[in-house]
C-alpha cells in the first residue's frame, strides 16, 4: 500500500494520491461487502423460512450475487420519456456519494480511519441526511406517481427518524465527552465494572435499541420500508430505474446498512476494541452482527402503515430518546 502511495504521490502529489488510493480501496471493499451482504440477506431470509437460499452458483450460492451483478450490468438502461432527464440520471450517482464519505470516517483501528475528523459524529449525521435528497430526486424526476409517493415517504421518514438516532447518539456522547469517533475507542472513558471496561450499550441499552430502530428506518428497510413498499408502490422511488442504475440504489442501501451498522458498533459496542483479533476485524464483526439483527427483524415483522410509522417516531421514539438523554444528563451530573 505504502509503495503504491509513494509511486502515485510522485505523479499526483501527496493529497491526491491519498484520495485516489482511499477511494479505490474503499470502493473495492464496499463492492465486495455489498455482494456479501445481499448473499447474506438471502441466506438469512431462506433459513428463517426454512429454505436454503441461493445454492447453485458457487459453493452455497456464494457467487450468486456476482452473477446477478453481471446480469444487471448487461441490462438495458431505460429512461422514461417524461422524466426530468438530468435529475433522473444524476440521482443514482449522487445516492452513493454521502455513503462513501461516511464510510471513510468510520475508525477501523487505533489511529486508522480513511479521513479523521475531530467532529466526526456531526459530519456523519450531516452526510447521512443527504442520501434522502438523491432518493427524492429519483422519485421526483421519474415522473411517476408511485415513484414520487415513494420519494415523499422517504423524506418524511428520514426527517422523523434522524431525530431519535441523533438523540440516542447524543446520550453516548454525553458519557464519552467527545464527538471524535476515534476517542470512542478510548477504554478509559468507558463505564467500568470491577475494573473491567464495558461498551456503552451496557449503560445505555434504551439508546442502543432506539438507535437500532432508527437506523433500520433510515436505511428504508422492513418493517420501515414504506418508501419502496412493493405491495403498494411497485418499487417506490426506484420504480422507473433499470439495470445498473437500479443496482446503484441497491448498492447504496446495503452500503448504508454497513456504514450505519459500523457507526452503531463504534458508539455502542466498543468499536474496534476487542481481544485477540485485529481492530478492523472486530469492527466488521460487530457491524455485521448489527446487520444480521436488522435482517432478522426484516424477515420477522410486517411492514408498518404510514401513519403508524410516523406516530411511532414522533409519539414514542422521540419522547423516549429525549427522556433517556435527560436521565443520562441528570445521572452524570449527580455523579460529578
Amino acid at each position, binding site marked *: 500500500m505504502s509503495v503504491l502511495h509513494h509511486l502515485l504521490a510522485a505523479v499526483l502529489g501527496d493529497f491526491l494520491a491519498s484520495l485516489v488510493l482511499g477511494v479505490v480501496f474503499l470502493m473495492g471493499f464496499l463492492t465486495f461487502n455489498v455482494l456479501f451482504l445481499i448473499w447474506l440477506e438471502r441466506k438469512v431470509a431462506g*433459513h428463517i*423460512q*426454512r429454505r*436454503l437460499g441461493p*445454492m447453485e452458483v458457487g459453493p452455497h450460492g456464494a457467487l450468486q450475487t456476482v452473477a446477478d451483478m453481471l446480469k444487471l450490468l448487461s441490462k438495458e438502461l431505460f429512461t422514461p420519456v417524461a422524466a426530468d432527464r438530468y435529475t433522473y440520471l444524476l440521482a443514482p450517482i449522487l445516492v452513493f456519494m454521502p455513503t462513501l464519505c461516511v464510510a471513510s470516517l468510520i475508525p477501523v483501528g487505533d489511529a486508522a480511519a480513511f479521513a479523521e475528523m475531530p467532529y466526526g459524529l456531526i459530519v456523519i449525521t450531516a452526510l447521512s441526511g443527504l442520501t434522502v435528497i438523491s432518493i427524492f430526486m429519483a422519485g421526483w424526476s421519474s415522473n411517476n406517481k408511485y415513484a414520487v409517493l415513494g420519494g415523499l415517504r422517504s423524506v418524511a421518514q428520514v426527517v422523523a427518524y434522524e431525530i431519535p438516532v441523533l438523540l440516542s447518539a447524543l446520550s453516548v456522547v454525553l458519557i464519552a465527552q467527545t464527538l471524535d469517533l476515534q476517542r470512542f475507542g478510548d477504554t478509559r472513558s468507558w463505564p467500568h465494572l470491577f475494573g473491567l471496561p464495558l461498551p456503552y450499550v451496557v449503560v445505555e441499552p434504551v439508546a442502543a435499541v432506539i438507535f437500532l430502530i432508527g437506523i433500520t428506518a433510515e436505511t428504508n428497510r422492513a418493517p420501515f420500508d414504506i418508501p419502496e413498499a412493493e405491495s403498494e408502490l411497485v418499487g417506490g422511488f426506484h420504480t422507473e430505474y433499470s439495470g445498473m442504475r437500479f443496482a446503484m440504489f441497491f448498492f447504496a442501501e446495503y452500503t448504508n446498512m454497513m456504514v450505519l451498522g459500523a457507526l452503531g458498533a463504534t458508539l455502542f459496542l466498543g468499536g474496534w476494541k476487542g481481544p485477540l483479533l485485529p481492530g478492523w476485524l472486530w469492527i466488521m464483526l460487530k457491524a455485521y452482527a448489527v446487520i444480521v439483527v436488522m435482517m*432478522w*427483524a426484516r*424477515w420477522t*415483522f410486517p411492514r408498518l402503515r404510514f401513519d403508524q410509522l410516523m406516530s411511532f417516531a414522533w409519539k414514542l421514539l422521540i419522547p423516549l430518546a429525549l427522556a433517556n438523554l435527560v436521565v443520562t444528563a441528570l445521572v452524570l451530573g449527580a455523579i460529578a
Partner: protein
Amino acid sequence: MNAVLRVVRGLQSLLVGLGITGRESLRRAVTLQYPRERPDATHWGGPIELVTFPATGTHDCIACNACARICPSDCFEIEGKRPEGARKMRATKFFLDFSTCSLCGLCIDVCPTDTLQYSRRYDDAAFHRVQTVNDLLAPFGEDPYLMGKLQ
C-alpha cells in the same frame, strides 16, 4: 399508565416474533435440491401400472374389463386375445389415459387377478395431451402366454 403498558406489551410481542423466526432459522431446511435430491416416494401412489409377478415374470391381466367398467372417468382402453388352448384371455392392448385419471383406485380394488397397482412415479411430464395416454403393456414386451412359452 395504559399507554406504557401497551408499549411494553408491544415490545414483548416483537421479541416473541424474533424468538419464533430465530428458532425456525436453526431448524433443518425443508427444501430439496430437486434434480439431485429426490423425495422418498415409496408411500406415494402415482399413475396406475400393471404388477409384475415374480413367479411368471409378467403381469396377469386377463382383459376382463372390470377396471374399464368401474372407472368413473373412462380412462381404460383394453383389448384381449385367448391363447391357443387356454381358458383365460391375455391383454393385447392396455391404454390408460392419465389426463382423465383421478387416481381413485377403484380399478385396483376391483381387479380379480390383483394385477393393478399404484406406481411410484411422481414426475411424469409431457408436451402433448396424447402423450399422457400410458401404454401399460409397453414395459412387458412380447407376451409369453401368447408366444406359447407359458401355459
